[in-house]
């Protein structure tokens, strides 16, 4: 199924969910409000049947810009793919979790939360996954500053030691 057809199909059920994208973009943009419903539709609709969430990528558009999440979906039955993007404001942006729809998302959402600070509403266990629980800040954000100290240990920043 082509992107345009999928767009039409989703638009027919949830007209508010879609956000217009740039010309020639190979993805669908959506608002976070309807994402849970749309995801359910994508997963269970007879024609769509996106049963695999290949990848969930958090990204940062830059300082001051919104944060985003890209979902790469794939259907093993219908053999078609889709990329969905959802962007939320930098501070306090919330996206509905799809961990119950695609279990893959459970850990990937935790990763996006860990590294970008995107909150996923309805996630069963939203904790840091790769970094220590007491880490401050979200390292993959473009405006992230390395801390000077971690648990009282100075973070080495230059290699003058061996010069």
């Amino acid at each position, binding site marked *: 199924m082509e992107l345009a057809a999928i767009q039409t199909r989703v638009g027919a059920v949830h007209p508010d969910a879609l956000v217009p994208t740039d010309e020639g973009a190979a993805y669908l943009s959506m608002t976070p409000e309807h994402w849970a419903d749309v995801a359910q539709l994508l997963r269970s609709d007879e024609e769509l049947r996106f049963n695999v969430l290949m990848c969930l990528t958090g990204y940062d558009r830059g300082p001051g810009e919104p944060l985003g999440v890209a979902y790469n979906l794939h259907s093993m039955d219908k053999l078609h793919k889709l990329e969905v993007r959802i962007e939320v404001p930098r501070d306090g942006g919330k996206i509905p979790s799809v961990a119950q729809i695609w279990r893959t998302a459970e850990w990937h959402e935790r990763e996006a939360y860990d590294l970008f600070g995107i909150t996923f509403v309805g996630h069963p266990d939203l904790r840091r996954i790769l970094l220590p629980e007491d880490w401050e800040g979200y390292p993959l954000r473009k405006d992230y500053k390395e801390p000077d100290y971690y648990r009282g240990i100075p973070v080495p920043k230059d*290699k*003058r030691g*061996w*010069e």
Partner: protein
Amino acid sequence: MSGYFRNIGETFTSLWDGMRVTWGHFSNKERLNATLQYPHEKWPIPERHIGFVEKDYNVIRSRLHVDIDDCIGCLQCERACPVDCIKIETIKVPKDVELGSTPGSSQTSTTSNGTNKRLLVGRFTIDMAECCYCNLCVYPCPEECIYMVGGPNMDKHPIDYEFAVRDRNGLVYEFDTATDEEVTQIAQLAGVADHRAQRTERLEQMRQAVLAPVPAAEAVTNGEEPVAAPPVAKPKKVITEPKMDLAVLGAIGDRVTRGLAKKAAMKAVRAGRTSTEVAEQVKAALEEGGKLTPEVADIVAGLAKIDIQQPGGAEEVAVAEAGVEEVAGADTEAEAKRAAPEPVADADATPKKETAPAASGDGGKGKVDLTILNGIGDRLARGKAKAILSKVTRQGGTPKDAAEQIRTALTELGKLDDEVEAILARLEG
């Protein structure tokens, strides 16, 4: 029920089959050994010659090497490195100056490919502990001068993969050959900052920063102690056994003969012989070794004149004093090392090498070579001479100045004889 018995049957057959496999390996004489008896056998490195020049280049990734004479300082490799383990600092050579033309320069002006070098590579360090062996630095090099060993010029660098070191700093390879003077000169000519001096300064600052909390922290004070300790400890150690100045033997030209003589002399001294007996024994030993020429015999005869220092006594003061001065000298020198290399040390390098073993632990480390004066037979004269020498070197004088002053002082004392004169001549070089 049949399943139960079939299970047991399957168990027996399958387990027996597995045991047959291991028995096959156990009893097979020509087994393929999965392991290597490492220090005795070595991993065979595939002989693989490809790359720039087919016969020269080997693909082994063992460690990086730089043919620094070919390096033009283009920084391509530094940029290519994903882990920033290559550090290069260059100074642009002014247009009218040719690299290598400055006095004392060890640099070549062109690479082996004939490219003119316009940059002086003042620093080229590779931290192999950080290297990720990705080989990415090798490709962009326009002069093909950085490569993994086993690469071009394989004759010069035999394939090897054992370069473990005990100290992490040993993995920081410094390839630059430019001397400090050269860097300073070129930097002056080019009108840019001398990065080596800057670096020394920065290191000094860091050292100061480390040393700063010394009064507060007790642990650091302990660390400083070894610097202060030796002058106190050393003289005591020296005087615990009878000792004789064997510097006289340094005059023997042949190295083998010298060694033989010194060995015999040391043995005799330890055994508590008088100086005449020592000379006799040395002579006997040399005769036995077939090394006794008339000249050597003369030198050995000189031994008989030298006193043997017994433990304790007035000697202690003199040696202790000398020890303190030596260390003090060494300390000041260490601080000024980078800025101005001590000419004394260089000038004395050769005689020091000969006499130092004879001093047997008498603080031979000191850069000011006081041991050379040990050949002076008279105690008073020796002490005076040593005091003057160390004083002069501390003030930055050359050995020549010191020799002059010693001469004057000894003439006053009436101790200036031929023997002393000879030693002073050696001191002057």
